[in-house]
């Protein structure tokens, strides 16, 4: 075994044995649901129900119940979609890219981050779905033969590329997540005593026996899936950015969009992971596995991606002037000083300035500060999309068609509702799934566990 350098901080605190890890992860699943969980799931499912109500009202009445108008014909719908897809980037980045980079700390967070990713992508898919108006013909986005009643899809459209990119990403993420879960489900299967529980978990664990052969295959499949998932992390948000950047709208058309959107997505995804995990680690007493060093690493990812986004903002701003194209220049001047300047400055301060606080070691290792800033970042990233979409549209080439966007209660209700659905799903996951990749964690216990590291150092 490779000896880890002494200066590396341990990743599992205290003296843990293999059995302790199993107990700590499986324990909460077997015991009764804690009160806090019951309260949280009640609130979030009520919000979810309200959101579903709003969606049904929209489907029954029509897209007119949103605040869209002739000039701003794309607003919260696509903003929410991009926001959710962006959040859905962290999970696969953590599980795939960090696997390729051999980052052991990912093992404490990958499971829940991937679950979050899957739920976030589902939330994202809601918006284009309901925006179609006739959701019952939504299969028309697929390239089906004309006999199905649809016309052959337009392959030139980035919106169609989006359908492919996101569905591929979703499938691979789901498979990746599930493959990782199999040995852990098997561990739970061996623990639970109730006959129904036993049956369900043995079905879920696909007859996993823990043989060496199984493990070899498991590792091979993980590596292959990581290799497939890594380009997908890039492709999804690159193609989302092309929904805008292939156009000729000033403020939308700029070549930096693909990598800058990817970076922004990772940025917001990590912020969401922080928000959820800081609560989860406390509620489920996982402080020894997800501790300050993990939080610090994630905060470093946030500062890096946040700064990349900052450089991209400034690059766009500079090039809009440098280009000498007056429409480009105006688009950016209008962003910073027009009727939506408040949104622009919220975006700037939340996304570019606030993460810079993490340069201070005290702040990036403070759980309270991290929790607050993670929410600030998610607000900022929502406004980023709002700024890009609404501000670029609201002043047309013809001043006579200038307009503004005002969100209706249905706009707001659906957005809040998706947060409710998302949290409900996540809470369900936290209750019935192994929230840490416990079998993977066991592989690093002897090299990165605190007590073992201390012994080695002697």
């Amino acid at each position, binding site marked *: 075994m*490779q000896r880890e350098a002494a200066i590396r901080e341990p990743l599992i605190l205290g003296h843990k044995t293999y059995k302790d890890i199993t107990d700590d992860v499986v324990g909460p699943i077997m015991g009764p649901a804690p009160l806090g969980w019951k309260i949280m799931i009640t609130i979030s499912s009520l919000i979810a129900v309200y959101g579903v109500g709003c969606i049904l009202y929209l489907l029954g009445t029509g897209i007119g119940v949103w605040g869209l108008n002739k000039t701003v014909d794309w607003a919260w719908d696509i903003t929410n979609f991009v926001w959710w897809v962006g959040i859905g980037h962290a999970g696969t980045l953590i599980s795939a890219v960090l696997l390729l980079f051999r980052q052991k700390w990912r093992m404490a967070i990958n499971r829940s981050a991937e679950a979050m990713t899957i739920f976030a992508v589902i939330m994202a898919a809601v918006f284009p779905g309901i925006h179609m108006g006739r959701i019952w013909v939504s299969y028309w986005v697929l390239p089906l033969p004309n006999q199905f009643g649809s016309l052959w899809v337009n392959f030139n459209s980035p919106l169609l590329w989006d359908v492919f990119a996101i569905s591929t990403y979703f499938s691979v993420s789901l498979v990746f997540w599930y493959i990782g879960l199999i040995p852990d489900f098997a561990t739970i299967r061996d623990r639970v005593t109730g006959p129904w529980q036993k049956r369900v978990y043995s079905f879920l664990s696909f007859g996993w026996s823990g043989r060496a052969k199984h493990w070899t295959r498991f590792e091979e499949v993980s590596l292959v899936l990581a290799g497939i998932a890594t380009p997908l992390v890039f492709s999804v948000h690159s193609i989302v950015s092309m929904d805008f950047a292939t*156009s000729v709208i000033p403020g939308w058309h700029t070549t930096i969009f693909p990598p800058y959107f990817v970076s922004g997505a990772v940025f917001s995804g990590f912020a969401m992971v922080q928000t959820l995990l800081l609560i989860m680690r406390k509620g489920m007493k996982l402080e020894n596995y997800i501790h300050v060093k993990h939080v610090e690493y994630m905060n470093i990812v946030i500062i890096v991606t946040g*700064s990349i986004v900052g*450089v991209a903002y400034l*690059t766009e701003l500079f*090039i809009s002037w440098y280009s*000498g194209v007056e429409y480009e220049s105006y688009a950016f001047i209008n962003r910073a000083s027009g009727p939506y300047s408040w949104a622009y400055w919220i975006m700037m301060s939340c996304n570019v300035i606030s993460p810079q606080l993490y340069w201070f070691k005290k702040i990036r290792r403070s759980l309270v500060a991290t929790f607050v800033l993670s929410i600030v970042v998610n607000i900022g990233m929502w406004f980023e999309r709002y700024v890009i979409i609404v501000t670029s549209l609201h002043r047309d080439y013809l001043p006579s068609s200038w307009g503004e966007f005002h969100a209706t209660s249905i706009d707001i209700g659906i957005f809040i509702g998706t947060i409710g659905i998302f949290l409900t799903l996540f809470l369900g996951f936290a209750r019935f799934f192994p929230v840490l990749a416990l079998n993977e964690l066991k592989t690093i216990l002897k090299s990165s566990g605190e007590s073992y590291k201390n012994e080695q150092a002697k």
Partner: protein
Amino acid sequence: MEFKFEGRLKLVTQVLMAVGVVALVGGFLTDTSDHHNRWWANLLINGFFYFSMALAALFFYALQYATESGWSAVLKRWFEALWGFLPWGAAVIVVVLLAGKFHAHHLYHWMDHTLYHEYMVEHGDHVHYVDEMEEGAVLNPNFDHVIAGKKAYFSDAFFWIRTLVYIATFLLFARMFRKWSLLEDEAPSLDLHYKQYKRGAVFLVVFAVFSSTLSWDWIMSIDTHWFSTLFGWYVFSGMWVSFMIFTNVSMLWLRSQGYFKEVNESHMHDLGKWMFAISMLWSYLWLSQFLLIWYSNIPEEVTYYMSRVLGDYKVPFLAMFFVNFAVPFYVLLARDAKRNPRFVIPVAILIFIAHFVDVYLLIVPGTMFDHNQFGFFEVGMFLGFLGLFMNRTFATLAKAPLISKNHPMLQESMELHY
């Protein structure tokens, strides 16, 4: 263990440099292009290509510290060795820019000061340019309102301050990292390690800004009207991949000569992975920039690709992309291929040349337009600079022990096994 820069390797670099000198002199004498643009363009291409590799080594070094990477600790001295070329590359770039300033060549259209003024007054042979209409003034036929709009950015003072600040910053950071690295050899010091860690992070911030702005200043401004927000990141990925290629091949050679025994198969595999991964990053950025511009077809942007995709440069431009993307993708995807020099070396040589062609095509279409020539001179310049680059790198490598001492992650790096 110390590296000795002598024998065949030294001779090879000297022969290459001699070829370069012949090309330099012969090329200048036979160059028939306007203002010797061809000669100067090639000086810039080579100066920038090799300088950017040394710069990428500095970036990668800082990246290793800032990310607490352990695997690369045995390669540290190699990265440091590459910085030996930084002052030489910087000098070539400064000479080209200075020559442009004094109108010895016409690579940078914006350096023509007559473009910025709307009116001119003729006094016999002498022409006086003015911004406002005045007595006896006529419209300046050279006036270019787009370039005039960029005047603030291209003003002499601002431009030269930028260029000198970039170079000075890079040289200072390289000097500082090298000093601390040698100091660490003398006695174990975690303080020094954490200093490198912190300065590494600071360097990454500086580099994130400068790598973009320097590519706007030195390269993008050649096509003065044209602009692309992605340009800086694209150039950056190109410098990074060229550096990874050079590192991979050099390390294979050094190991075959009995140096760097601590660098094992797993390290070579990791270097192969980097070469592969950054090739994909470069391809991704190439495609992002090309696709968005081609698809949108906005006249002021698409001109850049019109000359490259439709004109005389069509074959090298598309072939360059194909080689740089498809060859590493199909050949190096498999694990065993990345560990086998018989696959790595031919691919590396091929994409090294293709990345040179990439830099070549960043500069030549905007300077030589439809009158480009390619011959022994271009090849000679490429080889000559390669010789100089290798000469400086290996001479620097010989100045310190090959494996640094007391790096806190050295043991971990030596035990790397995957």
